[in-house]
């Protein structure tokens, strides 16, 4: 059963992955509270650890090119257990969507629209996301390529403008913290946000037929582009803020506030705010699309367009119930969420892949390899 018949090219898929990872630049503040100015070390470790995880996701795409993840679960575990595990994944996707929407609401309240109730902002965003979702993944992913480049340019520009504030000595000393802090930070960064690429397993049927080598290229190149931006943003913030990094909820915003090149070039944190809003909007739209497809798949219907709005509205009302405030959210992200996310992003997909390999699935494989002429 193909729910969404729209198709995107492999290149657009790659940029969607890159842009999705860039959207997680806000989440690096989660590890700043644990590993402070040494946060760049766990990010490097997290990137290395996420490579086999991304390879696992790519393997799903190669083995099951025309099946989304929930369909793979049903094939592997059978209809009943597959549906039960699929239902937990529906909750997981909706939960991640809600958490990101909560981040957006908190961010706009903190940085831009202080007097506006966050629910109004989130409602407006969701309505636009629903409009994109109803038009298919092609529309959802359409502007990923241009905005990946724009966001990359914003990061490079910020590095240039902050050149006089950057002190690379702030990255040192290294490896001075207790070992468990590195483990914790690496675990956090691997599961939030790198492991969240699991959501793209729901959109692989929308990617036009590509070869095994191209699948590998698009997954890893897309991830690499995202990693570079994440690392640059973090290193920039550490180099500028040093030991004070963990004191701020939005270190990127604080860093850009320090830009001061004459009277004309100061207080440019609005660029960060606009960029981050764009990023979060894209991420939430992808997540809403994935949640909608997952619900449609669970109930066995192709009418996902009629489910998008009600799921979006549910997410708007569900997200404020998750945490009372951003401090509670941050604390949970450091202590609990890595384990919850790890279950859905690593353990269950790995188990599924192992069982699928043992059962020699898929039995009737549509060969995704293009016939390569000798």
């Amino acid at each position: 059963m193909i729910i969404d018949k729209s198709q995107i090219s492999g290149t657009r898929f790659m940029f969607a992955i890159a842009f999705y990872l860039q959207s997680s630049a806000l989440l690096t503040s989660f590890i700043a509270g644990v590993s402070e100015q040494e946060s760049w070390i766990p990010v490097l470790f997290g990137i290395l650890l996420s490579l086999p995880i991304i390879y696992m996701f790519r393997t799903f795409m190669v083995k099951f090119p025309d099946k989304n993840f929930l369909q793979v679960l049903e094939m592997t575990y059978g209809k009943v257990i597959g549906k039960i595990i699929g239902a937990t994944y529906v909750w997981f996707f909706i939960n991640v969507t809600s958490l990101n929407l909560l981040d957006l609401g908190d961010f706009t309240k903190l940085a831009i629209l202080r007097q506006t109730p966050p629910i109004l902002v989130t409602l407006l965003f969701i309505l636009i996301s629903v409009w994109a979702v109803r038009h298919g993944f092609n529309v959802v992913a359409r502007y990923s390529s241009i905005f990946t480049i724009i966001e990359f340019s914003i990061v490079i520009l910020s590095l240039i403008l902050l050149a006089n504030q950057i002190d690379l000595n702030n990255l040192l000393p290294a490896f001075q913290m207790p070992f468990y802090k590195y483990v914790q930070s690496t675990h956090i960064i691997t599961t939030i946000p790198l492991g969240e690429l699991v959501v793209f397993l729901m959109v692989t049927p929308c990617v036009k037929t590509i070869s095994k080598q191209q699948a590998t290229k698009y997954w890893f190149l897309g991830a690499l582009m995202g990693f570079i931006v994440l690392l640059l943003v973090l290193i920039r913030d550490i180099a500028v803020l040093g030991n004070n990094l963990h004191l701020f909820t939005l270190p990127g915003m604080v860093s850009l506030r320090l830009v001061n090149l004459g009277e004309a070039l100061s207080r440019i944190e609005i660029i960060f705010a606009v960029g981050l809003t764009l990023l979060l909007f894209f991420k939430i739209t992808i997540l809403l699309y994935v949640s909608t497809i997952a619900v449609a798949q669970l109930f066995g219907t192709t009418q996902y367009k009629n489910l998008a709005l009600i799921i979006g509205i549910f997410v708007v009302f569900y997200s404020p119930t998750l945490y009372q405030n951003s401090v509670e959210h941050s604390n949970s992200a450091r202590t609990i969420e890595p384990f919850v996310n790890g279950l859905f992003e690593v353990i269950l997909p790995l188990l599924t892949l192992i069982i699928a390999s043992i059962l020699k699935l898929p039995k009737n494989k549509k060969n995704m390899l293009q016939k390569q002429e000798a």
Partner: protein
Amino acid sequence: MLILTIGGFIVIVLIDLIPLIKHRKKFAIIAFSAVFALALLYGLMNAFEADMPSIMKAWKSLIEWLGIAYKLE
């Protein structure tokens, strides 16, 4: 707030549920109804400013009971 919430849900039913009923999409109607019920519950609780239990707190209890949660410092 309550009137706006109920009004909003009526609009959603008119936009999305009526076409599904017209085209007799049984599974889609079931899916819509399930999500609608949850959304309406959360929407009404929000309108009445009532506290809803957080699922993340349940996960927190489970992870802490398993003894694997990281400690806050």
